[in-house]
């Protein structure tokens, strides 16, 4: 059973009055992550909105020891810290439970610029949790395309809509044979909480990716952050799943879509509610380009359904 909202702990690791935009999906997700991790953790951040949201020195908007590192190195820096705390414990310089070492990184810092170091950390199976809050663009620098930006989407570097589909990074991380991989979404806080608790209690490299619809980059009203997150799941543009020791399980509502109990909603309405697809929808080849986006979603659903059957 998924943990209900009323069962979630009181602890707040994201402090009020931080520097994030109103309605920010990243702080929304991080609050739930904080409830699962508790205060005994060390946070690493690469350049992103999450860093800008920390606020102004000498104040800090997150209630953890935070280390801002360079863009390419989330995986390697977290590895270094996790080894350091293990050795400090061995030498008796650190008593009690080891802190959870985690990275809180955007899609730019995960899919693109940080991928090499993350891949290396996963291959070594170092004891870290890598979180990717995925707002499908480089939001902090004014919305440029990333490897997570879906096809057809407008960004400042794809002025006519991106021509390539996004990559499935959670699946790529799974293929590193790490013990835990999960996808989550800010509209489903209980599901996210449970996944973070599992990751916290599993040794080795864990990867959790959280879809984070950003009103600024996606161009919708900031009050609709949760609605947009939910819509992404209902049309199958985002699938909720987790894999413990390589075995994939889908979580509802995605599980119903994968099993065929409930058809995914057509993608049209999801696209229409976001300004980032506006130009595409108004273009002369709109029908064809919507069909391409629908094709990407259908392929991903079909592929993940088959991939989950492989349990060797």
């Amino acid at each position: 059973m998924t943990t209900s909202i009323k069962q979630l702990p009181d602890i707040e690791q994201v402090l009020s009055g931080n520097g994030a935009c109103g309605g920010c999906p990243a702080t929304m997700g991080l609050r739930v992550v904080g409830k699962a991790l508790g205060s005994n953790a060390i946070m690493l951040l690469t350049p992103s909105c999450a860093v800008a949201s920390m606020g102004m020195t000498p104040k800090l908007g997150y209630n953890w020891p935070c280390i801002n590192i360079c863009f390419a190195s989330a995986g390697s820096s977290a590895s270094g810290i996790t080894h350091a705390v293990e050795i400090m414990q061995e030498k008796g310089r650190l008593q009690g439970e080891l802190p959870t070492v985690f990275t809180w990184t955007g899609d730019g810092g995960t899919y693109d610029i940080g991928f090499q170091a993350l891949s290396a950390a996963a291959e070594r199976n170092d004891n870290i949790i890598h979180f990717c809050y995925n707002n499908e663009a480089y939001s902090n620098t004014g919305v440029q395309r990333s490897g997570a930006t879906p096809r057809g989407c407008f960004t400042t570097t794809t002025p006519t809509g991106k021509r390539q589909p996004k990559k499935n990074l959670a699946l790529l991380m799974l293929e590193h044979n790490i013990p835990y991989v999960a996808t989550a979404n800010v509209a489903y806080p209980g599901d996210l909480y449970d996944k973070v608790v599992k990751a916290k209690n599993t040794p080795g490299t864990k990867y959790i990716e959280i879809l984070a619809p950003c009103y600024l980059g996606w161009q919708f009203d900031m009050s609709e952050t949760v609605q947009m997150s939910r819509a992404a799941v209902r049309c199958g543009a985002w699938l909720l799943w987790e894999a413990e020791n390589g075995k994939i399980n889908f979580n509802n509502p995605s599980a119903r879509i994968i099993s065929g109990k409930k058809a995914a909603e057509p993608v049209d309405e999801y696209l229409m509610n976001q300004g980032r697809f506006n130009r595409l929808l108004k273009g002369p080849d709109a029908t064809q380009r919507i069909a391409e986006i629908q094709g990407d979603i259908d392929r991903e659903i079909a592929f993940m359904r088959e991939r989950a059957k492989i349990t060797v």
Partner: protein
Amino acid sequence: MKAVTKAYRPISWPMKGAGGDTGTWRTHRPVVDIQKCTKCQICWIYCPEAVIDREESIVDYRYCKGCGVCAAECPTGAISMVKEE
């Protein structure tokens, strides 16, 4: 553990209001009609700012950014967004 010497001192400390009094960013304020509120805690969990009291559904206006997520998600329509004067 060794005492924290000057070289190890962090440059920032966890504190509310790291982005200033963010309540000044608001154009609309969420007003809760306690009569309609069922204390379901949905607004509490989705508020990105952690400014809604879990038990009493009271908003801390010093930091509430007025995003309206709480009003959009409240299942009973107990929260309305009222224009700031």
